[in-house]
């Protein structure tokens, strides 16, 4: 196993072009998905947090449960949507990076929304009276709180990013793992492992972990800086 690890490190160090193309695509897909999921999930979570409507508790339970959506199931669902034989087949999106972004976005919206809902609801308890005293209602109040706790929402966003970059089931099904087109880190690791080419798989695995670590570290630094600056 040590050989495999060293082999992996060597591949990373020699900046193998194919490897870095795969890394670049993985980042592009997962980061895009995170951006869309954040734009959809944050307002959704905030709205549920401050809203008062019938069935609210049920909605919260369902949202939390959706955090555990199995990636393969999402992949299958999106595949059926985008397949030529399916309702959105005309778009010709199957087996392209946009399809992968769509699948991952669906996968992580519940995560970001559920975590945002919790964070906003906790913060709302602190802000609610003062905001209502100033005449700030409903949606505007939710957005104000959302913006005010933006740095702690980084945690929710990072959770979504972590899930997206780690999953293989959804991107495999809707992307097809096409060499040079839709092959990302996780699907390559799966492929190379099944071919018995462990050094490459390990090399990619290390890159993947390093990237996720780096992003988390950056987010922590941002949170600390914000804490010092804004209190």
């Amino acid at each position, binding site marked *: 196993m040590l050989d495999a690890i060293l082999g992996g490190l060597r591949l990373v160090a020699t900046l193998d072009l194919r490897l870095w193309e795969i890394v670049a695509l993985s980042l592009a897909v997962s980061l895009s998905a995170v951006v869309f999921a954040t734009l959809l999930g944050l307002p959704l979570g905030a709205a549920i947090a401050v809203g008062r409507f019938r069935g609210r508790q049920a909605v919260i339970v369902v949202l939390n449960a959706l955090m555990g959506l199995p990636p393969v199931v999402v992949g299958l669902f999106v595949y059926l949507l985008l397949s030529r034989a399916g309702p959105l087949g005309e778009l010709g999106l199957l087996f392209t990076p946009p399809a992968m972004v769509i699948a991952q976005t669906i996968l992580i919206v519940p995560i970001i929304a559920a975590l945002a809902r919790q964070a906003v609801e906790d913060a709302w308890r*602190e802000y609610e009276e*003062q905001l*209502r*005293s*100033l*005449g*700030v209602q409903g949606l505007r109040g939710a957005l*104000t709180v959302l913006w005010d706790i933006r740095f702690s929402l980084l945690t929710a966003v990072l959770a979504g990013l972590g899930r997206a970059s780690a999953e293989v089931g959804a991107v495999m099904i809707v992307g097809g793992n096409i060499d040079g087109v839709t092959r990302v880190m996780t699907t390559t690791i799966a492929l190379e492992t099944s071919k018995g080419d462990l050094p490459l798989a390990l090399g990619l695995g290390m890159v993947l972990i390093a990237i996720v670590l780096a992003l988390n570290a950056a987010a922590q630094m941002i949170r600390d800086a914000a804490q010092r600056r*804004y*209190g």
Partner: protein
Amino acid sequence: MNGILPLRLERVSFAAGGRTIIEPLDLTLEAGASTVILGANGAGKSVLMRLMHGLLAPSTGRVAWSTEGPRRRQAMVFQRPVMLRRSALANVVYALDAAGVPVGQQLRLAREALQEVGLAYAAGRPARVLSGGEQQRLALARAWALHPEVLFLDEPTANLDPGATREIEAVIKAFDVAGTKIVMSTHSLGQARRLGDEVIFLHQGRVAERAPIDRFFPQPASPEAAAFVKGELPWA
């Protein structure tokens, strides 16, 4: 003058969690005199203030202002100031924006408000890094900018040291002089005497006594108030 006062509470009561916190009461607040609401912890002062300000809906009865749309004409300062993670100036601007003040005037009015409470030096600083006393003054600046007819204050100096307390009381006095009706709850007798023109004494959710400040001190008429004053005296 088309003001929102007098405020009439008609048969207003409030119950929550199976307990009655405010017994049905009738109360009228007129313009002019600053009203201090006095009472022990748990007497219902905070709840009464929130009923008047509209943060809570009464279980029975109604809270009636003299004209429609009283929202902008009142403001409230809480025991613990709640500030947004923005500069002090931005917090005041936010309140002005929420009140519908035209964008062109917001900065000017905000700066004037900070000036009034002596916080001009802190305009650009993040509100949340200010001291407790400074944040409470900022809360008052936020209220001042709105030029409210009525200013509710719920134990505004309970968490502050004597120096900060004096600064806050000075600002409240300035509000009073400017014509804003002050409605303030406190359990400090000294503060009541310094700032109030009349006292409403609350005991277990009922108005036990209401009197001008000179008649209430040194000797309240009701037995509950008398007991309270006697017990509180060491801390006045």
